């Protein structure tokens, strides 16, 4: 449950961030999310054609200062980074490509209804 929740959260934060900030027009855009299982890890690839954005270089919010100085932003990317075991960013042409890995045990996969469907 914990791993599934974290995967859900990571994809939610990354895609929500793209929808909110990646586009400077009102045209239709495609965001592609591909999840596959590879050598004990779930590998997620998120692609968009928005403005260049490398979440790895995104500023880390100060999570220890008093409430009055906390900023109401950047938390989503921070959470996504913390819950991922690996994160690679590439800019290919007009596309942001983020590849994220998360280690999962066989026990965790056995609880998943998607077992055996990864390729």
């Amino acid at each position, binding site marked *: 449950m914990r791993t599934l929740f974290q995967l859900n959260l990571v994809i939610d934060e990354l895609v*929500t961030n793209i929808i909110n900030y990646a586009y400077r027009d009102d045209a239709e855009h495609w965001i592609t999310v591909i999840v596959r299982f590879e050598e004990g890890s779930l590998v997620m690839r998120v692609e968009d054609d928005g403005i260049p954005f490398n979440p790895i270089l995104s500023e880390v919010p100060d*999570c220890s200062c008093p*409430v009055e100085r906390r900023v109401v932003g950047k938390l989503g990317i*921070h*959470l996504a980074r913390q819950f991922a075991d690996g994160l690679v960013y590439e800019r290919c042409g007009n596309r942001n490509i983020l590849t994220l890995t998360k280690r999962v045990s066989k026990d965790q996969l056995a609880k998943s209804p998607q077992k055996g469907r990864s390729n």
Partner: protein
Amino acid sequence: MEIVGKKQNGIYIFTVSGRLDSNTSPDFETRLLGVIKDGDKNLVMNFEGVDYISSAGLRVLLKASKILQNSAGKIILCGLKDYIREVFEIAGFVTIFPIYSTVDSALNQF
């Protein structure tokens, strides 16, 4: 997401269930800030039924907490599932919000 609110001995208790994400957080914000605007400043958030929270939900709590700072009010959380609590820890929210296991223990803090 469902939110049920009730006032008990001067403390406003929100019982939240379901998902607190970017779709549902605007409703959560309206309800929470509405109660604060109406003058309540001692709040308990019962999250026993919350099975998902993203940064959108955290932002609402932070916003409410910032407003309550000015009126010496506070929000106490309770009933967080372990994996939900972990999100609060990583976001550094455990230093902003006291977290208790049950509603009764949260109510005793006022």
